[in-house]
C-alpha cells in the first residue's frame, strides 16, 4: 500500500513536468488550431539560450531574463509570423509537418552549435528532498508542480476574470463574431503565442536541472505532453494539467504492475480509449462541429 502511494507521489512529480509542457500546447490549439510537434524542442531550446548567455559571462538572473525574452521573440513572435501565419489557412496538416521539420531543425542546430553532450543546468529551486506522505520527494519536482498549478490558476484567472481574457476567449471560440464585436483577434492570437513562449521558457528553467540540457531531451517530453494534452482535453488548460498528472501516475503504475517493457503502451491504450469514447478529453468540452 505504501508502495502504491510512493508510486503515485513520484508519478505526480513527473506528471507535473508533462503538464507544464502540455499547457502551452493546448493554448496554441485553442486559438489557432496549431498542433505543435516541436513543443518538446521549444522547452529544450530556452535552456540553451540561457546557457549561451551565461557563457558570455552574464550572471544567472540576467541569463534567465534574456533567455525568456529571446524565447518570446523566437518561439512566440517569429514562430507565429514566419511559420504559422502563412500556413494556417491551408489546414492543420501542412503546419503540423512544418513543425515536425522545425523540431528537427532546432535539435540539429543545438547539437551543432552547442554540443551533443548533456550539460548540467543550475536549479532555481534548492536541490534536495523533502518528506511528503512519508516519502522523500525532490524539491525540484515540487517546484515544477507548484509552478504548473500557478500557471493554470494564473491563466484561468486571466481568461475568466479580466476583459483581456474574455477577448482572448472570444477570439479563440469564434473569431468571426469576435471580430464583429471589435475584438482585435490577431493581437489576441499573437498574445497566446507569446504566453506559450514564456511558458516553455519557464518550463525549461524548471525542468532542465532534472532532465539536463541536451539536444534530444525534447523528444520524450514533447510526446508525453502531447498525450497528456489529448487525454486531459485538447481544449482545456486545466485538462492539460490533469492529463499530465494522470500520464505521470499511469506510467509509473504501468511499470510497476503491468510490464516495464510495455510501460509506454499503457498511456497509448489510455489515449485510444479516451479518443474513442470521450474524444473531447476527460475534462474537455465537446467541440462544436459543423456538418
Amino acid at each position, binding site marked *: 500500500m505504501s508502495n502504491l502511494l510512493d508510486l503515485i507521489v513520484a508519478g505526480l512529480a513527473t506528471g507535473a513536468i508533462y503538464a507544464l509542457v502540455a499547457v502551452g500546447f493546448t493554448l496554441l490549439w485553442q486559438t489557432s488550431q496549431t498542433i505543435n510537434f516541436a513543443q518538446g524542442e521549444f522547452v529544450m531550446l530556452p535552456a540553451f539560450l540561457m546557457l549561451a548567455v551565461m557563457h558570455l559571462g552574464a550572471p544567472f538572473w540576467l541569463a534567465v531574463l534574456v533567455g525568456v525574452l529571446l524565447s518570446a521573440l523566437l518561439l512566440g513572435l517569429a514562430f507565429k509570423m514566419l511559420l504559422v501565419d502563412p500556413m494556417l489557412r491551408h489546414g492543420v496538416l501542412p503546419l503540423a509537418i512544418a513543425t*515536425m521539420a522545425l523540431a528537427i531543425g532546432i535539435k540539429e542546430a543545438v547539437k551543432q552549435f552547442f554540443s551533443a553532450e548533456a550539460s548540467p543546468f543550475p536549479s532555481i529551486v534548492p536541490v534536495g528532498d523533502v518528506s511528503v506522505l512519508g516519502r522523500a520527494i525532490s524539491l525540484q519536482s515540487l517546484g515544477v508542480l507548484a509552478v504548473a498549478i500557478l500557471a493554470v490558476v494564473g491563466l484561468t484567472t486571466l481568461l475568466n476574470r479580466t476583459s483581456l481574457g474574455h477577448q482572448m476567449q472570444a477570439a479563440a471560440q469564434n473569431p468571426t463574431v469576435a471580430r464583429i464585436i471589435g475584438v482585435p483577434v490577431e493581437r489576441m492570437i499573437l498574445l497566446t503565442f507569446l504566453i506559450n513562449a514564456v511558458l516553455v521558457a519557464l518550463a525549461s528553467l524548471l525542468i532542465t536541472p532534472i532532465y539536463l540540457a541536451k539536444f534530444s531531451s525534447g523528444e520524450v517530453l514533447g510526446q508525453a505532453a502531447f498525450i497528456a494534452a489529448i487525454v486531459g482535453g485538447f481544449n482545456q488548460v486545466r485538462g492539460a494539467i490533469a492529463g499530465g498528472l494522470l500520464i505521470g501516475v499511469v506510467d509509473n503504475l504501468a511499470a510497476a504492475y503491468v510490464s516495464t517493457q510495455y510501460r509506454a503502451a499503457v498511456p497509448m491504450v489510455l489515449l485510444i480509449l479516451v479518443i474513442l469514447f470521450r474524444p473531447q478529453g476527460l475534462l474537455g468540452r465537446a467541440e462544436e462541429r459543423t456538418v
Partner: protein
Amino acid sequence: MSKHGRLLLAALAIVVIGGLIIVPMNFNRYGLYILSQWAVMTIAAMGLNLTLGYAGQVSLAQGAFVGIGAYGAAILTTHGWPLIASLGLVIVICFIVGWLLGYPALRVQHHYLAFVTLAFSTLMFLVFRNESWLTNGIYGISNIPRPEILGFPTRKPLPFYYLCLGSLALVTLAMWWLIRSPWGRAFMALRENPIRAQSLGIDTRRYTLMAFAIGSVLGGIAGVLYAPLTQYVDPVPFNLQLSLDLLMMVIVGGSGFMFGPFLGAMIAVLLPEWLRVAEGYYLMLYALAVIALLIYSPTGILGILDRYLGSRRTQAASALRAAAQSKLEAAQ
C-alpha cells in the same frame, strides 16, 4: 488537357522512365542503394496518399505497416520461404490489420484519428522490440536473403534496384487503375464531402475501411522490399518517426496527386543525401528546406503546378461562362 499537353506529358513520362532504367546502370552501389530506397519509400507513401490524399483519412501508422511488411519478409525468408510467398502473407495481414485500424475512423476524424493511429504506431514498435520470440527483439534479424526473380538472382545492387523499380511500376499501374475506377471516385467523394457521398448511395463505412486496408497493404509491400534491401531488420527504423516521415512525403509531394509521393520521397530520401556536402549542417538545411517549401506552397510541390493550371482553368471557365451568358441573353 489539350492534345499538345498530353503529348508533352507522355514524352516526359518516357524520358523519366527511360532515365530511371538506363542512367543508374553506371551508378555505384551507394547510388543504386539510395535509388532503391527511394522506390521503396515511394510505394509506402503512395499507400498513405491513397488513405490520406484521396480518401481524406489522416493516418500516422503507415510506418508501422512498413515494419509489419519488413518483419514478415525477414522472418519468413530467413525460414526458407520465397519472397513472393511472404509478400502474399504480408498483403493478407496488412489488409486485415489496416481494415481493423480503419474502425476508429468511423467514430472520429481529423486530428483525433491521427492520434489513434499514432498510438497504434507506437504500440507496434513496442511489439517489434519486445516480442523477441518472433522478431528477435532489439537484436533484429540479419542475413535476409535477396530473392531470385524468374531465375534471375537479385543479390547484386543493380538487379535489386530493378526489382524495386519494377515493383514501383506495378504498384503505380495498380494505383492508377484504382484511382480511375469508380472506387477512386468514391474515395475522393469521401474526402470532399462524406455526407453528400452517403446520400448518393456510397457506403462510406466500407470505403473508409477499404482506404485504410489498401493503403496499409502498400505499406506492407514497401516493407517486404525494405527487408532484402537492407538485409537486416531491427525495430529502430520503424518507430513513430517513419510514419511522420511518410506523412511528410505525402504532404510535401502534394497530397491527393498521383505523382506526389514520387516527389515527396525524393525530397525525403535524396535531398538529405545531396545536402551531405554541408556535413554537420545537412539535417538543419534539410529541415529549413522543407519548412520553406511548405511556407511557399502548403499544398506541396504538385500544389504549385495545380495552382498554376487552376488559375488558367478558372480563366478559361469564366470565358466560357461569359460566352454562354451572352448566348442566353441573345436568345431572350
